């Protein structure tokens, strides 16, 4: 369609899943009261998928929806590894059934017959891991000049450039950046959010230097211009110090 006003795209979201252990609505309500009262704001208007996988006896689907909406959740649909017929039944009642390809759920205490709110990834996405500390990164070594218009990205690594970085070039690393030469272009360290990332160069003539989003343009670098310098963050402020 040329110039369409809408577009359908696949996307993945992290959704909370409520695993039901019992079809007893009274028990479910009691546990929900306890859980939600611990942090009512946290649960307010949270989109919730309800898993019926662990249920031993059928449950009133409409009643479940009404119940969780009482607690100000936004009901999305049902999920769980259940028989095709049950899925068909749920859909016939007007509810969405979300197929699980993989669920990465944290360990649940299965001996308890209570409803537990559980943060699970419903669609097939990787869990977002906390990035390791800078000092666990390996080095990506680049020998030679990095010319104007070129861009190097050291993903989950430190970057070592043996050569100069020309004006108009960009060097980016999730870890630290070392330039054994002149830094004339842009250097962006701690690209994924490391505040401990550092940038080192033998000759500072950079256009822009950034650590974890805190950046300086060349006008802020006049003090140490043309010298061997290293940059780091002190209290989220970018700082430069002479190397020698």
């Amino acid at each position, binding site marked *: 369609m040329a110039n369409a006003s809408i577009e359908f795209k696949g996307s993945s979201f992290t959704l909370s899943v409520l695993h039901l252990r019992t079809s007893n609505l009274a028990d479910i309500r009691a546990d929900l009261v306890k859980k939600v009262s611990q942090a009512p704001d946290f649960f307010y208007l949270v989109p919730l998928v309800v898993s019926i996988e662990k249920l031993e006896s059928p449950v009133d689907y409409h009643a479940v929806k009404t119940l969780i909406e009482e607690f100000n959740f936004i009901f999305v649909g049902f999920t769980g590894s259940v028989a095709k017929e049950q899925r068909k039944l749920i859909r016939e009642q007007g509810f969405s059934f979300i197929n699980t390809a993989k669920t990465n759920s944290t360990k649940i205490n299965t001996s308890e017959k209570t409803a537990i709110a559980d943060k699970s990834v419903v669609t097939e996405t990787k869990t977002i891991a906390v990035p390791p500390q800078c000092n666990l990164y390996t080095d990506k070594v680049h020998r*030679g*000049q990095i*010319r*104007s*218009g*070129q861009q190097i990205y050291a993903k989950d690594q430190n970057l070592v450039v043996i*050569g*100069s970085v*020309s*004006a*108009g*070039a960009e060097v980016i690393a999730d870890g630290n950046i070392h330039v054994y030469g*002149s830094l*004339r272009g842009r250097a962006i360290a701690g690209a994924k959010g490391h505040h401990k990332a550092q940038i080192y160069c033998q000759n500072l003539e950079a256009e822009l230097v950034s650590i974890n989003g805190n950046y300086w343009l060349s006008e802020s670098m006049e003090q140490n211009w043309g010298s061997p310098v290293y940059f780091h963050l002190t209290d989220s402020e970018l700082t430069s110090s002479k190397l020698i």
Partner: protein
Amino acid sequence: MARIIVVTSGKGGVGKTTSSAAIGLGLALKGHKVVLIDFDIGLRNLDLIMGCERRVVYDFVNVINGEATLNQALIKDKRVSSLSILPASQTRDKDALNKENVGKVLEELGQSFDFIVCDSPAGIEAGAMMALYYADEAIVTTNPEVSSVRDSDRILGMLASRSRRAELGLDPIKEHLLLTRYSPKRVEEGEMLSVEDVEDILSIPLIGVIPESQAVLKASNAGEPVILDTESDAGQAYQDVIERLLGEAVEFRFLNVEKKSILSRLFGG
């Protein structure tokens, strides 16, 4: 197999065509078989600089399209028989060129010539990319001026990543820096970038410094490449470039302001 040399720059108007003509003719005068190819489809001027514009019948695009053979399109230079020119088309556009058909033409030329000098158009688009793709060596023509140096740096990046040698993981293109329109006086006054400044930024070996010279304009208008003007500084500087291309180590001339002795200042000279 022939040595394929591309004369490129990124920036326009720095002296690529002037240099291609001078270098092509210079190599031929030394006895080598040289073909000069104009890759600037649509804006051809190599034939003007060489003085053979009235003898262009068929061009590069005609050959590619099979409308003419190479022999029909190649123009033999009247001054040196071992030099031929393959002119560009003026009416067609560069979309006629692609890697395969250009490669075939170069291969055919490689069988009868020692040197293939490719005069690149300015820019970093298809025309320039086509000219540099098959190169074994590159002469990066640069003026000692900030935008020219920046653009040369860009084209060096392209030579290192978008050429056939880069794609196939072969030995990289041999890069040479040719500094043109150099004025030692202005360098001394601090107005112009010096050779050292440009070398520091580009970090490639210097093959020649051509001084700013009125001889260049005279040469273009006459259709006689400036290397033939042996009295001029530019002509002599190009001679030095030829020597270096052929492996001789030659001192760099025309780098310093000529210090006139008191006598010559008194009596002119």
